[in-house]
């Protein structure tokens, strides 16, 4: 014969269990915002597949942090506010957009006279950009990622004077995917958002699928 206390306990336990069940049910089957695609559901070549607005199936719901280069104002906080030192945000060079300019707005400090690789001419504080002669008058620029601190100086230069082929991105081989990204909370332009892990980049201005190589970690 259970005592009254035990009976009450069982009752409360049952209600807590039911409550937890209801909560998780509500969370799992919760309806997202009504979203519309606006395109013709031909996802394969969709130009907006990076920021698809349709609700996603459950299995691809793992989310990671990414920043949207078209909103970024290169404030420099990406370099300082990441929990990691150096930051998990790095400059990414989209070769497909690059003009291979001799006078690169991302490589040289404004007003540089002699276009050579002397350190004092370079915008990058860590000399992380490598300049290589391709053919007259073109130069290839490569980011030496271990050196890049994600300060965005080159990105600013490139988007002001060049094609905008240098863009900041969270690098997922470094990012530990904090529950709340500490750059996101301080980003003045609200450029950070959670994106699906299955499609974790937000490069802007070109068709990503054809010109990039995905490497597995």
């Amino acid at each position, binding site marked *: 014969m259970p005592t009254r206390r035990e009976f009450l306990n069982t009752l409360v336990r049952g209600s807590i269990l039911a409550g937890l069940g209801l*909560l998780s049910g509500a969370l799992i089957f919760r309806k997202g915002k009504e979203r519309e695609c606006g395109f013709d559901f031909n996802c394969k070549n969709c130009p907006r597949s990076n920021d698809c607005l349709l609700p996603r199936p459950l299995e691809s*719901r793992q989310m990671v942090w990414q920043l949207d280069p078209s909103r970024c104002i290169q404030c420099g906080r990406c370099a300082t506010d990441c*929990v990691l030192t150096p930051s998990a945000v790095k400059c990414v060079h989209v070769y497909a957009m690059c003009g291979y300019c001799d006078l690169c707005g991302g490589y040289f400090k404004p007003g540089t006279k002699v276009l050579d690789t002397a350190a004092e001419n370079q915008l990058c504080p860590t000399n992380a950009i490598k300049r290589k002669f391709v053919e007259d008058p073109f130069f290839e620029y490569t980011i030496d990622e271990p050196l890049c601190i994600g300060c965005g100086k080159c990105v600013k230069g490139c988007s002001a004077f060049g094609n905008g082929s240098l863009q900041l991105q969270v690098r997922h081989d470094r990012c530990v*995917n904090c*529950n709340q990204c500490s750059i996101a909370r301080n980003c003045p332009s609200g450029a950070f958002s959670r994106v699906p892990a299955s499609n974790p980049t937000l490069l802007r201005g070109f068709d990503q699928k054809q010109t990039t*190589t995905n*490497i597995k970690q």
Partner: protein
Amino acid sequence: MVFAVQRFPKPEFETGYLQPGTLLPSPRAEILAAMDVAILVLALSVISWIVLKKRSRKGVFWMSLFSLIYFGFYREGCVCSIGSIQNITLALFDHTFILPLTVIAFFIIPLIFTLFFGRTFCAGVCPFGALQDLVAFRPQKLGSRLNAVLGMVPYIYLGLAILYAATGTDFIICRYDPFVGIFRFNASFGMFVFAGILLISGIFIARPYCRFLCPYGVLLNWVSRFSRRHITITPAECIQCRLCEDSCPYDAIDIPVTTKDPENRKIRVKKLIWISLLIPFLTFAGGWTGSRLHITLAGVNSKVRLAEEILTPAAGQGQPESLGLTAYKSSGKAAEEVYSEASEILDRFYNGGWILGGFIGLVFGWVIAERMLSKWHTDYIPNKGACYSCARCVDFCPVKTDLSEIKHEKT
């Protein structure tokens, strides 16, 4: 804002130069996240078995060491059950927020295990608890009054965390997470200082984060009070030898209150009336105070701050404009939009302030009430809410026989 303008055409290379592709590293594979959940369930099952069936402190120790290494140093902390409170809250309030299944799992599963077996999660799965347990060398008794007062902090922390998550302002549990920096061997200076303070004070005050900060602990505490089974100090019957009295580093053992109802009825009724007046009063007073504070509370919200800055530009007073303002200007967003967003958030904070303040008042009243009304019981028992099921007290009990052993001897 101008972005990605094709100022220079793409060159036509004549030397057969091959344009390199842009490397895009993938994030951690999704299957690993599913594995984390599986390991969580497995770890909880094993620790519950160790605590309730094996009753072995050694077992608990090794299990917590495993969790410290796996969930702490390997997984590097995120997402943890403690922080998941905020994801769950935000998901309930913001329908655009996508909640991964694993986060729901990390939030719900430990609560369910606790509902059946007590806080075994804290004993051997939570890496925070494991880390603090390792350094608890010289635990001191704090006294019940200090314990009660400091014990209210987690409620306030939980309330604030929910308020800030629900308004989409910040995840403060993650922001002031002391140990994640240790797990990653990489953190800001402030984080290391906080972790250092907690770990050093943790030598004398066992598990300071768990007892006086952890917001998830509040939920576990309440769920555990109604748990189906719970660790017991003695395997059979308490003989009141008092040997275990000082064994708990967390002051979680309730010592017997044997004088049944020391007061006469009149005093008891008086007390009850007092309490039933006090609790509603404190709840209301707290709510009122909270609602008065809503502007202060909302001050950290970036949208509210931006709206304030647009209204009263600081640049005129000789300060440089903030980066937020610069970004706002280059985004070309209308000021009205910012204002309406901000005022909506302020409304939420007003309501949230009432609820948060009321909640804190209620907790305050409850703590007072609990101390006024003594409960009668004869044995040394672990307090089901506060006990972390670490199994230290088990070794102190001289009663070693339990029924299964007797059977074993007979055969």
